[in-house]
């Protein structure tokens, strides 16, 4: 039997970036509101959120292109106040890649090394090594204007990695690439980060990108950090509706708190009856109401006479075909909103007629309690 692994890799527990109570205001508008965050050495960390949530502002403040209105940022134990961007141990991959158009690939990669005045052989060796890391060997003499989008991105990566920074900052590096290339680069970026062992901080608005690559994710909304956790925990145990909604689909069911103690709580719902769940760490009670969430793929169709310990019954009202999966919208008596169900097509979920009665099985473990 397969053994379940908690974490693929153990990082050191050393803190690499310490962000403490950082606020950035533009007049009355707060781009970042009292954010605190600790990023560990060797970690692939993602800042995830919709546009305007402050994630890029935070990244630019780590790089030194922006200054906190209040609060402090420390990198590798050194406070960064007053240290200009060119003297920070960080390097950045820009969203537009910012490849110098008047230089060729080699000269772009060697740009930062020039100032270090290495001897010619050493400089050449490091450039070659960086180009090999991003699979661009042999393209050194290419002009910057002759590169494809994917190649430009690799040059930007090599140019930053060649500096051997303590932290590599990536500002939506994959957003300009097409879907296929983006998925390929996600895997490559992750592999590269594990090979070089440098702390990566990635800014993205694409939840799948963050889930696929990161060791930990900080989800941000409106200048505030909503949740910091591993991809699995963020997906399975979102702290509130906003986080749950931003990361994939989620069915929300109104619930009433019957009982609450330190680690667990009992909720009363209409469709799912009385449910006992774990109490989320950041749960703050807001009156007697709460929300119960369940992911569409955690509801399974019960065929024919099959039964399950936990099930709900209803009627199919819509069916959407997506190739490998089918999306069913199921009305449950008592629930004000129908449930979304995602079912793989291997058992013929794509043939379920609209209007047919249906029974759905669920695992109470998959139910998440969220503050309202």
């Amino acid at each position, binding site marked *: 039997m397969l053994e379940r692994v908690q974490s693929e890799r153990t990082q050191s527990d050393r803190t690499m970036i310490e962000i403490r109570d950082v606020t950035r205001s533009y007049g009355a508008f707060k781009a970042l509101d009292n954010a605190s965050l600790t990023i560990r050495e060797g970690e692939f960390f993602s800042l995830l959120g919709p546009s305007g949530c402050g994630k890029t502002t935070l990244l630019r403040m780590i790089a030194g292109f922006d200054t906190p209105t209040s609060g402090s940022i420390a990198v590798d134990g050194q406070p960064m106040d007053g240290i*200009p961007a*060119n003297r920070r141990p960080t*390097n950045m991959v*820009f969203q537009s890649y910012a490849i110098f158009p*008047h230089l060729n690939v080699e000269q772009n990669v060697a740009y930062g090394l020039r*100032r270090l005045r290495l001897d010619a052989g050493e400089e050449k060796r490091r450039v070659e090594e960086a180009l090999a890391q991003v699979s661009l060997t042999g393209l050194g003499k290419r002009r910057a204007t002759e590169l494809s989008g994917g190649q430009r991105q690799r040059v930007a990566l090599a140019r930053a990695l060649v*500096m051997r920074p303590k932290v590599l900052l990536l500002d939506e590096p994959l957003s300009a690439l097409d879907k296929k290339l983006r998925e390929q680069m996600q895997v490559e970026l992750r592999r590269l980060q594990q090979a070089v062992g440098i702390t990566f901080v990635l800014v993205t608005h694409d939840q799948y990108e963050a889930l696929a690559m990161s060791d930990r994710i900080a989800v941000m909304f409106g200048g505030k950090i909503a949740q910091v956790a591993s991809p699995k925990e963020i997906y399975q145990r979102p702290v509130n509706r906003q986080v749950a909604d931003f990361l994939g689909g989620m069915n929300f069911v109104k619930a009433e708190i019957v009982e609450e103690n330190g680690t667990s709580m009992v909720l009363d719902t209409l469709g799912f009856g009385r449910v006992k769940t774990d109490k989320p760490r950041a749960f703050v009670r807001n009156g007697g109401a709460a929300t119960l969430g369940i992911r569409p793929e955690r509801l399974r169709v019960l065929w024919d006479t099959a039964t399950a310990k936990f099930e709900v019954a209803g009627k199919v009202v819509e069916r959407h075909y997506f190739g490998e999966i089918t999306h069913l919208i199921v009305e449950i008596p008592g629930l004000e909103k129908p449930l979304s169900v995602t079912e793989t097509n291997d058992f013929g979920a794509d043939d379920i007629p609209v209007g047919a009665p249906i029974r759905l099985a669920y695992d109470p473990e998959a139910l998440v309690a969220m503050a309202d």
Partner: protein
Amino acid sequence: MTAAAEGSPPLRMAGSRRSPLLQSEAVQGFALISPTFVYALILLVLPILVVIAHSFWTQNYLTIDHTFTLENYRIALTEPIYRDLLWRSLYISLTVSLLTVALAYPIAYFISFHGGRHKSLWLFLITIPFWTSYLLRVMSWKVILGYNGVLNSGLMGLGIIQEPSDALLYNSTAVIITLTHAWATFAILPIFVSLEKVDRTLVEAATDLGDGPLRSFLRVTLPLSAPGVISAALIVMIPTVGDYVTPKLVGGKDGVMIANAIQAQFGKASNWPLGAALSVTTMIIVSLMAGATVLVFRALQRLAR
């Protein structure tokens, strides 16, 4: 017309009525520029051809001898007076263009990088001197540089000099000062445009890779604005070689330039063939100098790595 016909390509419908020649994009393009083209042909190309033709002829008192000769070019290139005037013109225009570019660059840089919301206001202010006639602007330099001028009385008032200096006006320095001021706008605008096109994230990237403000300027901003610098230098250099109003007004006898000699040949001296030969010689030398300037700037640009 039916709805189905509306969806068909318009080219085919036009083809049934018009000849294919008129549909070609090149022909349409030529048609569009033809008024300007004809205008330029009549007022620019024809006069130049007339000048070139004259340069191979000889003035024979009131008539022109149409036998082919290179005598005019021999005079233009070997007579010390014309050689000196040509050298001085080239020296003045080169100095003016370098000075103008050097002074215009910081202004253009300031407007582009620190102009903020007021960029267009700054550009507008820079064009204000053009609201007055060029002659008036030259005259005002006379007022500033003259024996009893603003500069002299100012310096005397401060006790820096005891009596008015006559070294300020009526020499080539006065011509250089006046021309540098007059052509500043023509240098600021192309440099500004090329600076506007410099992607600001490139400067950030240079900073991120460890460059301080001066280094990132020398390695990124300056090389990327080189096209603007080159065109500014050429825009100033080419017309100033042939300027004759400024030297006439503020140049005195030490500030006379080749264009004054050409004007004299076409005017008082009434020797059109020699004037034409001088013009053609100047044109060729200016073209060579412009070409050389472009090559020098390109080489400098390549140095910035």
